[in-house]
């Protein structure tokens, strides 16, 4: 299983309901290929930086998937067939994110090893909220 970010732009002529239906359809496609849609990020209608198929704006949707290459291939095939998808891009992100996490954790370990620069995490016991008076 790999993590992918699949972004696509749908034509602005679509209604919101049609877009929702299309996203739901794509989710079933991914699930049919033993994948999982982790997150659906719908940006709504946004202006394009340049004209695509004579459209000046489009609906941006970003799907985060846990899936294999077969699911991506099927998804991309459907994007090519669908007339209302004007642009799409799939990016494999798990390797880059793993590397990013590695750098972050290494940085944290370094900060712990160098206590003089790291802020002290030991707090005064008196700093705790006082308990309710008895009686």
């Amino acid at each position, binding site marked *: 299983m790999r993590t992918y970010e699949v*972004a696509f*732009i749908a034509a602005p002529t679509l209604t919101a309901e049609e877009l929702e239906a299309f996203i739901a359809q794509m989710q079933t496609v991914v699930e049919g290929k033993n994948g999982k849609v982790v997150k659906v990020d719908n940006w709504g209608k946004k202006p*394009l*930086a*340049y004209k*695509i198929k004579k459209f000046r704006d*489009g609906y*941006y949707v*970003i799907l985060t998937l846990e899936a294999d290459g077969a699911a991506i291939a099927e998804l991309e095939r459907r994007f090519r067939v669908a007339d209302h998808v004007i*642009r799409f*891009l799939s*990016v494999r992100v798990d390797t*880059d*994110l793993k*590397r*990013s*996490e590695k*750098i*972050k954790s290494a*940085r944290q370990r370094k900060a712990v090893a160098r206590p003089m620069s790291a802020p002290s995490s030991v707090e005064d016991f008196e700093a705790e909220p006082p308990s309710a008076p008895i009686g």
Partner: protein
Amino acid sequence: MPAPKRFSIKRRRVCKFCAEKITYIDFKDGKLLSHFIPERGKILPRRISGVCSVHQRQLSEAIKRARHMAILPFVSD
């Protein structure tokens, strides 16, 4: 007498991504990427922006992806 050296305002010696501890440059973040796009729409060379080589490579990849998704322009003037 040689002409005085011209210094651009953009000239910065510290890599923005190292300073802000950004380890993954996302192509969806058009606002961040637009700092490295001059008016013409080209990718700002790192001798001007001061971005380190590791981040410049990630940045150029992210900008190219953003261009494909019409988040950034290929050309603009």
